[in-house]
């Protein structure tokens, strides 16, 4: 579904990702792991067109590089970005409405918003509050819900568990599993390696902008040395 | 010296560009030069943009002086005229300003200064005399501090003359330049409950045009009287569709500007020569050039001090805007007739053109 070859990400003169290749098949959940500054977020940014990149990014057979951010979203890519980036001056509800900006089915949108308010009741309680005043974790929930409002074909999640309480972390991973079982394709970036590996099919380990290891989670899971490195636990 | 240089460091851009005396000055210089110049010497008008900035104007004056200018021009604001005159003094050069009606310049601060017009009390008096002649009794004065004494004091002088002539100032109302809705002032006038014979205002276009129309649509049929600020082609234009709008409007100004007057003909001649002189104010620049040329011719000298002395002592100096002016008695401002312009069927007519004698003296 998503096929990336020889991707380089550039911030001005700095190259943050040095020619990586990765694939996400339809219905799969693929995880990117790696320490701070490895280039995970940069890769996500490049896929949605926010960061400048070279190489090949093909999505559903269509070449993405050179297309506008908006067109990529309309092609079915949706992201919950690093740093959440909720619209802080809009209400929680308006954030979700904007998330469905490309949809036209009014009733469907209403229903989906209600769905999210039941999934994350705290958001429901804050529905008219301006999103900037939400707590860190509430904002994270909102960002994930907003990304899903677009009904994407592929969902890019950049550290969705960041700043969330353990109970919600569990809920988020359960939700990802659920989405996957409904056929959603997911590209996940996580620091929480164990949990991420548990629910994903395939994983890439990034460090300093290059891929250091990759494999199905089953094979990776057997590689103790690698696991130790990933989790830092030993 | 090959040419007779007149230096004009004046605003060609910015808010004060409409004064534009340089346009008329250039045209007049070309006319004189086309006839062979003065005493076989050509007149050269040096023009540079001061952007209405005093410092720049002074620097430019210095530059023109160093280049040998025999006469200078500046924007008609005393804050610029005074320091420019001070700089020019050591060169024996004077300033000739053809539009400056401010009273202040005549208080003896500088004496190397001429203005080709009479100060505001004279225009106010000329206008008031005509108003009295029309039987005006009750007047309303509109004043503003924004245009200096021109807009703040001229109406009061007008009122003084009216009261001296048996009339009455009903009230004074305030306004700002750039007003496009006069309804608060008009409501005040209606609330007076008395018949208003005339409304006096020293302001500029387009405000004046707006005032006239709004007065008329509010059913106030008083004379609208004013000064040189009225003298812009866009005033005539408000009556394009309804000539009667201007029927009860007149103003005292710098020069007769009705059809076939010297100024109007001059503007037409300039247009033929390919020089755009868009109205009375720009045309007045011709006076500067004409006066200098006359002085050079009379004295046979291009020494700046001689030129100034010749102008100062002459009984009668021919200029473009009025038949003649003289500085002999007044020293710094021109003794001359004050034209009063009115309208008939939307066309300008010269109503009066006399030297007022009953001018207030408190200035």
């Amino acid at each position, binding site marked *: 579904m998503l096929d990336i070859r020889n991707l380089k990400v550039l911030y001005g003169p700095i190259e943050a990702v040095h020619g990586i290749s990765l694939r996400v098949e339809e219905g799969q959940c693929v995880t990117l792991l790696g320490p701070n500054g490895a280039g995970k977020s940069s890769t996500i940014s490049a896929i949605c067109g926010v960061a400048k990149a070279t190489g090949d990014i093909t999505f559903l057979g269509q070449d993405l590089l050179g297309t506008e951010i908006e067109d990529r979203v309309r092609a079915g890519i949706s992201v919950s970005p690093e740093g959440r980036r909720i619209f*802080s001056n809009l209400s929680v509800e308006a954030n979700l409405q*904007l998330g469905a900006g490309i949809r036209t089915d009014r009733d469907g949108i209403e229903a989906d918003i209600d769905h999210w308010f039941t999934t994350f009741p705290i958001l429901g309680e804050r529905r008219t509050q301006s999103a900037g005043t939400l707590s860190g974790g509430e904002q994270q929930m909102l960002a994930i819900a907003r990304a899903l409002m677009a009904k994407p074909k592929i969902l890019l999640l950049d550290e969705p568990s960041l700043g969330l309480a353990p109970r919600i972390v569990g809920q988020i991973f359960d939700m990802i599993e659920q989405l996957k079982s409904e056929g959603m394709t997911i590209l996940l970036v996580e620091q929480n390696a164990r949990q991420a590996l548990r629910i994903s099919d395939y994983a890439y380990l990034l460090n300093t902008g290059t891929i250091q290891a990759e494999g199905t989670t089953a094979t990776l899971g057997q590689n103790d040395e690698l696991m130790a490195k990933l989790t830092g636990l030993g | 010296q090959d040419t007779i240089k007149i230096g004009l460091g004046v605003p060609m851009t910015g808010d004060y560009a409409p004064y534009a005396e340089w346009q008329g000055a250039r045209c007049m210089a070309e006319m004189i030069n086309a006839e062979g110049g003065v005493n076989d010497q050509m007149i050269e008008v040096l023009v540079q943009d001061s952007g209405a900035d005093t410092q720049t104007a002074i620097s430019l004056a210095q530059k023109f002086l160093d280049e040998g200018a025999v006469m200078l021009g500046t924007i008609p604001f005393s804050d610029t005229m005074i320091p420019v005159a001070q700089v020019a003094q050591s060169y024996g050069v004077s300033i000739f300003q053809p539009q400056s009606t401010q009273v202040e310049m005549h208080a003896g601060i500088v004496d190397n200064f001429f203005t080709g017009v009479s100060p505001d009390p004279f225009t106010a008096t000329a206008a008031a005399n005509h108003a009295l002649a029309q039987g005006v009794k009750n007047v309303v004065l509109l004043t503003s501090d924004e245009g200096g004494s021109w807009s703040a004091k001229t109406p009061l002088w007008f009122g003084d003359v009216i009261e001296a002539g048996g009339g009455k100032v009903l009230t004074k109302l305030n306004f700002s330049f750039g007003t496009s809705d006069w309804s608060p002032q008009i409501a005040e006038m209606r609330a007076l409950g008395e018949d208003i014979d005339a409304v006096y205002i020293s302001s500029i276009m387009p405000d004046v045009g707006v005032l006239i129309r709004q007065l008329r649509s509010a059913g106030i049929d008083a004379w609208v009287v004013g000064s040189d600020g009225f003298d812009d082609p866009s005033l005539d234009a408000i009556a394009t*569709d309804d000539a009667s709008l201007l029927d009860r409007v007149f103003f005292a100004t710098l020069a007769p500007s009705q059809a076939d007057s010297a100024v109007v003909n001059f503007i037409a001649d300039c247009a033929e020569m390919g020089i755009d002189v868009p109205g009375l104010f720009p045309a007045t620049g011709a006076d500067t050039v004409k006066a200098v040329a006359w002085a050079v011719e009379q004295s046979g000298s291009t020494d700046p001090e001689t030129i100034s002395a010749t102008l100062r002592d002459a009984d009668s100096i021919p200029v473009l805007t009025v038949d003649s002016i003289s500085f002999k008695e007044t020293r710094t401002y021109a003794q001359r007739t004050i034209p009063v312009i009115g309208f008939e069927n939307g066309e300008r007519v010269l109503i009066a053109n006399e030297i007022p004698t009953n001018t207030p003296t408190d200035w």
Partner: protein
Amino acid sequence: MDYAIQQMVNALSFGAEYALLALGLAIVFSVMGLVNFAHGDVIAVGGYTMVAFAAIVTANPWIVILGAIVAAALTSVLLERVAFRPVRYADPTTGLLTAFGVSIVLQNLFLLFVSPRPIAVTSLYFMDVPIEMFGVQVSSLQLLESVTTVLVIVGLTLFLNRSVWGLAMRAASLDFEMVRLMGIRANRVFALAFLISGLLAGLACIFIMARRGSVDPHLGFNPVLKAFVACVVGGFGSLPGAVLGGFLLGAVEVGMLVLLPQEYGGMKDAFVFGIIALILVWRPNGILSPAVEKGDKL
């Protein structure tokens, strides 16, 4: 009594004009945090278009009006494209100064290529007819302008709060890229905001021109200056704030004109702005922006 009512009507009509102008500023501000000092020059473009239309094309006032509105709207969109797009992500100061620059350029272009002097346009005089209503005199123009302002307020409020485009506009000022990540064509969001602002400028231009009957390079400067103050008083970026500020300013201004003794008339602007300043001391962010306690939140 009649007199008081008359002046109140006048105050309302002053306010309507300021509100209309302030709305044009507020909509652009709410989208990209830009304090658009060039708004007045967009109005002037409308005015000059009228001159050109009346002189070259036709004197039919409706066509002249249409021409002016279209020209103002197009100018506004064009300015967004050439001048404001590059500073889209920049801080408000940068935008403000850019708009300053644009305004200076436009004014000087008018001076250079048209004229520094006022040019009369008489084709809109017909809009200004005196009407007596309950003993109060209003001009049809005041009435029309007030009605227009009210319609614009209602329309804009619905649009901004109900439509996705409206939401996107409000969101774009803080995180433009994220709006694009919602699949919303952000360039169109900005173009739309400037289009609306330009249309409002065009409308304001009609009323200003109908009243003044002439255009010069500074046509919009003074009214827009007031409109800024209206925006700040109401709370910059808030549309209801802009409207409230506009009417408040109108009231204060007419009030000062009426109440100040003539000797102090010259201080009118000082008093008007002084009163406004006092309001700002009471509510530093404008009347309609509630004092939110942000804490460490953004």
